[in-house]
């Protein structure tokens, strides 16, 4: 099967300076495409967790997993391609909102169970959480009103059930 598709992998790394550069540098020089990357510390302060969404065919994904494993500061790599997971992304969307449009925008916000977290005379700032598709969808629906700014965290993910990424 040689079709490019999106994969989510979680990489647990030593929480040390330069580790992000090691991982992103590896991806860049081996030509792996990163769609999104989210990094933060875990419950263990010596460990950071990266959730990386990559595109590539199966053999590319295989190389990504193996090459990432080889980095000394990488503690574990979990490929979520075959595992049921819960995944979330958070986005902040600033949309222009004049008096005429406010009601309609608030309705969209409601339906998506998003939140208006800031308001001005001419704009709303909306917080939305969900899967990538949901964030894409609300962004599309808000576009006609005039999106002023969008920031997305990138996806984070966890396996369903009691499995953890810790080796």
């Amino acid at each position, binding site marked *: 099967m040689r079709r490019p598709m999106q994969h989510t992998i979680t990489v647990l790394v030593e929480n040390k*300076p*330069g580790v992000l*550069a090691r991982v992103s540098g590896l991806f860049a020089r081996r030509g792996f495409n990163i769609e999104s990357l989210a990094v933060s510390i875990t419950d263990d302060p010596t460990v950071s967790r990266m959730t990386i969404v990559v595109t590539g065919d199966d053999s590319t994904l295989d*190389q990504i997993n*193996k*090459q990432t*494993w*080889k980095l*000394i500061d990488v503690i574990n790599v979990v490929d979520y391609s075959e595992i049921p997971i819960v995944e979330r992304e958070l986005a902040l969307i600033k949309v222009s909102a004049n008096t005429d449009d406010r009601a309609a925008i608030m309705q969209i916000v409601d339906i998506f169970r998003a939140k208006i977290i800031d308001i001005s005379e001419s704009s709303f700032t909306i917080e939305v959480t969900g899967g990538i598709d949901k964030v894409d969808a609300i962004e599309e629906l808000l576009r006609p009103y005039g999106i002023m700014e969008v920031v997305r965290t990138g996806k984070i993910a966890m396996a369903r059930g009691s499995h953890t990424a810790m080796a």
Partner: protein
Amino acid sequence: MNGANALIQSLVDQGVNMVFGIPGGVMIPIYDAMYGRKDLKNMLMRHEQGAAHAAEGYSRATGKVGVCFATSGPGATNLVTGLANAHMDSIPMLAVTAQVRTTALGKDSFQEADITGITMPVTKHNYLVKDVNDLPRVVAEALYIARTGRPGPVLIDIPMDVSLAEIDYQPIKDVNIRGYSPRVDIDESKIDEAARVIDESERPVIYVGGGVVTSGASEELTRLSEKTHILVANTLLGKGAIDENHPHSLGMLGMHGTAYANHAVHECDLLIAIGARFDDRVTGKLAAFARKAKVIHIDIDPAEIDKTVSVDVAVMGDCREVLAKLVDKVKARKETDWNKQIMQWKSEYALQCPADGDVVLPQCVIAKLSEFTKGEAIVVTDVGQNQMFSALFYKAVKPRRWLSSGGLGTMGYGFPASIGAQVGCPDMPVFVICGDGGFQMTLQELAPAVEHKLPIKIVLLNNGYLGMVRQWQELFWNKRYSGVDISVQPDFKMLAEAYGAVGLRVTKASEIGAAFEKAMEVNDRPTLIEFRTSPEENVFPMIPAGQSIEEMMVNRPRSEG
């Protein structure tokens, strides 16, 4: 003691007694810590690239971790070529660089270079040590990482204030790195499967690389080949893995491999790859490479499995351990028609040493050298035509006696690497084969070679060209010899003498043997033998880059005259 002394003591405690390096401003504390020490010597090189290659040569010849030192900034960046070279060829090596003070880091300070950032892609791992208390552990970890698993170079960067800071030194006994477990437990079922596939095959061939040399698996490999009568082709770095005079040896395969090795691989129904990585110089056009064959791949690095060639049976593990098990599991087999077929290719396409009256042909120099040493020497090569002539015409009989820059193809590697080899193996004759191009890239290391009375024999094949590029231009670029004429050059005999080495010159084929004998009589300094070779000699066989055996030129194409 201070950090610099802790570094040196750590190295000594880890078994290091020789480093190759050059000091510099922020490196002074570390050189001060070596002052007067008997248990760790610095060999003062003349360029940091030379230091890196010398450390590599030491590693390759001895199997121990070679160490090089350089100062911050340009000293450190000059190591990069050597690190990249060692990285590509999986050579264990430790580089220690000094760095500006931690307070000056990131401020574009004098002689500051982000060497950990720069070397990330060309090291197995690297460290920037900001706390002196980490130093002993980092040294132990670095050496452990360098030599275990798939070996490679590791760099430690030490800011000057860390070198000067006080530490209560305690030697490190155990290394435990959470994200690194080089030990691979062999999956016995994979051994069984490999043995079954081998037993069922009709036209098997073994293809061995540097991993067999690294893991010391020569004996097991030879036993496997003898028990099964499966013949063995080797890569450039796999030379000496099996005695190339063994009737089962097919010599090198690939772009400039022997025609019979390439025919065998092309027609085989099973390719057993051991400690090799299907480099493009081996495979040529991937779609045509061993197209009829199932593939067994034995390697310690999982990332090599299915990287370019998809594999039917992968056996992960140390080559020696895997082969020791495999040789017991496979059935003994006799010579078959397939063996006869290969032997027929072997005689049909036997390597011929050309002759042209008394003209010095590079092939003949190497063939003579092979005859002269009988393999009882360490032979180092540079990169280019000299290297490929050597790969074809020099018979390596044992592992770690053939040192060459494979993956990176680094001109200038050979001579400094030979220094490391001679330092590591003082009782072995060391020959280094260079072209006039590569030798001029690092010849400044004649000074330390003379200083340390190293009796290295430099076989300089002087054709006045960057010969391999000229060969490509001749064959594929209509003889447009752009940027390859280096005939304006020093008198190499006089140059050697100017450094205090012995210089010899050979202009007639009949003088080759005598020159080697003369060089062997010199045991207190290097001897450079300049061979004035015929300028437009080409390396054949050749499969053009990215093509298949169908395009192989066994000899100079007729139309080229």
